C-alpha cells in the first residue's frame, strides 16, 4: 500500500521538549524519518546584553543561561574574568565553588534523570528525583538566599561564606543521597520496561560524539573518557579522589545512567571537600567594584552537568566586556539529535532528546 509521510510539530510548547524546543518531525507511520530541531525560542541575547553591563552585572545574566545549573555558568564566567583580570581566588572560595557546583551537578542530574523518566511516563520516579533536588535547593537557599538564580560565584571568589550549620546539613544530605539514588536506580533503571525503552535507543558512537563536539555525560555515555575535572584540571579538583563515570553503549540508557552514577561520585567529592575545607577569606582581597581588565581575550571552561561549558571574554580595557561568548554544551550536544534519532519511533525521539538533557536557556542563550 502506498503511504505518505506525515509532518508533525513537537513544540515549542510540549511537555517533553524540556523547554521551548520545536522539533519538526517527518513520520512514516510511527517511525521518524527526519527530524529538525528548531531552536532559538528562548534566545534572549544575553551575549549582546553583556556588552552593556559591567563585569559584576553580567553575573546575574549568567544565572539565567543554564537555569537548571546556574552555578556552572557563574563559575565559568568568573573563571574567564579572573583569567582576564589576573585575580587569585582564595582557597576556601575554590572549595566552596567545588562544593556548590557538585551539589548543582546533583540537582541538575536529578532534573535530567527525572525528566528522562517522565519522558517514558514514569512520573513518580521524576518526583522522587525532584525531592532529592529540593534538598539541594534548600542547601542553596540557606547559602545564598535564592532557589534557582544564585548569583553566588563572583569574580574573585564567592559572595557569602557558609552559614552556620550548613556543613552538617550538607553532610547529612550527602550521606543519604546515594541510597536514594540506588532506589531510583532500582525503580527506574532496573525496571524491565525502562530498560526496554532506553536500551539501544539513540546510539551515539564515541568517534561521532567527538567529531560533533558532544561533551559531558552525553559523550561519556558513549565511552568518551573525557572529563575536564580530571583531564584539564581546574580549581582544586586534583585534590579529590573520584572516578569518571563512562558508559559503553552510547544509548539513552547509558547516558541517563552515567548521570545517576555521577551524582554518587559528586557525593564523594563533596565529602572530601568538606573534610578539607579550612577557614579563610572567600573573596579575593583588594578587588575593586569596577573591574577593568587589560585588553585581550580569555577563554575558560568548566565541566558542567551538560558538558564543557566555556566562556570567551574579550576585553577592550573598559569596565564592560567587549564581547562575551558562551560555549554552551547543550547547544553542541543538541546538534547531534537528528543524527541519532532518525529511524527511531516518535516515542523514542523524545526519550533521545531527554537523554541529551538540553536546557534551552543555555542552548539559545
Amino acid at each position, binding site marked *: 500500500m502506498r503511504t505518505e509521510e506525515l509532518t508533525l510539530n513537537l513544540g*515549542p*510548547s*510540549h*511537555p517533553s521538549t524540556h*523547554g*521551548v524546543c520545536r522539533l519538526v518531525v517527518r513520520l512514516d507511520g510511527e517511525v521518524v524519518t527526519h527530524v529538525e530541531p528548531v531552536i*532559538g*525560542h*528562548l*534566545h*534572549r*541575547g*544575553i551575549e*549582546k*546584553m553583556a*556588552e*552593556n*553591563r559591567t563585569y559584576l552585572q553580567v553575573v*546575574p*545574566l549568567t544565572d*539565567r543561561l543554564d*537555569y*537548571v545549573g546556574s552555578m556552572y555558568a557563574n563559575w565559568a564566567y568568573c573563571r574567564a574574568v579572573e583569567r582576564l583580570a589576573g585575580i587569585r581566588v582564595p582557597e576556601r572560595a575554590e572549595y566552596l565553588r567545588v562544593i556548590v557546583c557538585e551539589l548543582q551537578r546533583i540537582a541538575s542530574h536529578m*532534573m535530567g534523570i527525572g525528566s528522562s523518566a517522565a519522558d517514558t511516563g514514569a512520573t513518580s520516579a*521524576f*518526583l522522587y528525583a*525532584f*525531592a532529592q533536588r*529540593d534538598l539541594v*535547593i534548600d542547601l542553596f537557599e540557606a547559602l545564598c538566599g535564592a*532557589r*534557582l*538564580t544564585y548569583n553566588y560565584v563572583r569574580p574573585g571568589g564567592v559572595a557569602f561564606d557558609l552559614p552556620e550549620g550548613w556543613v552538617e546539613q550538607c553532610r547529612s544530605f550527602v550521606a543519604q543521597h546515594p541510597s536514594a539514588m540506588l532506589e531510583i536506580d532500582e525503580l527506574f533503571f532496573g525496571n524491565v520496561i525502562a530498560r526496554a525503552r532506553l536500551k539501544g535507543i539513540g546510539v551515539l558512537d564515541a568517534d561521532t560524539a567527538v567529531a560533533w563536539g558532544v561533551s559531558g555525560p552525553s559523550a561519556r555515555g558513549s565511552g568518551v573518557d573525557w572529563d575536564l575535572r580530571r583531564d584539564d584540571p581546574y580549581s582544586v579538583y586534583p585534590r579529590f579522589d573520584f572516578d569518571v563515570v563512562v558508559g559503553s553503549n552510547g544509548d539513552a540508557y547509558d547516558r541517563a545512567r552515567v548521570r545517576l552514577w555521577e551524582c554518587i561520585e559528586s557525593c564523594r567529592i563533596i565529602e572530601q571537600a568538606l573534610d578539607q575545607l579550612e577557614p579563610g577569606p572567600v573573596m579575593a582581597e583588594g578587588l575593586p567594584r569596577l573591574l577593568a581588565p587589560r585588553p585581550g581575550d580569555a577563554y575558560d571552561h568548566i565541566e558542567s552537568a551538560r558538558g564543557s561549558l566555556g566562556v570567551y571574554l574579550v576585553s577592550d580595557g573598559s569596565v564592560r566586556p567587549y564581547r562575551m561568548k558562551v560555549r554552551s554544551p547543550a547547544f553542541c550536544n543538541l546538534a547531534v539529535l537528528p543524527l541519532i534519532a532518525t529511524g527511531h519511533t516518535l516515542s523514542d525521539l523524545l526519550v533521545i532528546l531527554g537523554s541529551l538533557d538540553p536546557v*534551552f*536557556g543555555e542552548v539559545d542563550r
Partner: protein
Amino acid sequence: MATIEDIAEFLDKAPGGGILLTTVDAVMNWSRGKSLWTFPMGTACCAMEFIAASFSRFDFDRHGTIPRPDPRHCDVMVVAGTITHKMAPAVKRIYEQMPEPKWVVAMGNCAVSGGIFYYDTYSVVRGVDEFLPVDVYIAGCPPRPEALQDAILQLRKKIASESISPRRRRPVASELPQPSDPRKGDLEEQPLARSKATAGGPDV
C-alpha cells in the same frame, strides 16, 4: 437560540430570577475557582519553579490545581519564563486555543515586563501583557512556588466577581490605573516629576 446573556438579562428582571442567577453564579465561580487547571507555558527558569510547585514539596493538587499539557483542557495559562519575539506567536496561538473562560497568570518578571531582559536586548517581548490579557502578575525572578500559590488564590478572588449576566459582572479594582496608561514601570519614559530634584547638584 437566545444567548445565555439574554436569558440572564431576562432572569435578572424577572422576579426570583435574581436569586437563581446568584445561585448559578455562585456555583459557577466556586467551581471555576476551585478547579483551576493550568497550562504550563513554561519557557525558562520560572518553569522550574512551576514544576516544583506541582511536585511533592508544594503540591498544587491540594488546591485542585493541576497542570495539563493540552490547552483545550485548561483554564489558566501560566506564562512562566521569558517570551521572545520568536516564541510570542506560539504563546498567543495557544492562548487563543484555550476554551473560554480563560485566565492568564504572568509568572516571574520576564513574563511581567521582560525583567532582567528589559534593556539592551533585541529579542525579548517586554511583558506578556503586550499581547495577552494578564489577570495576575507574580513578581520574582523566579518567584517561589508560594507566590504562584498566592496568585492562584488571587485569581480565585478575581473569578468570584464574575457572573453569567453581563450586568452583574463586577469590574475588579476599577480605581486602579488602566494598562493603556503609560506604565509606571517604564521609569525612564516619565518626565521628571519633581523640579527640585537633583539635576545639577552633587550626586552623592
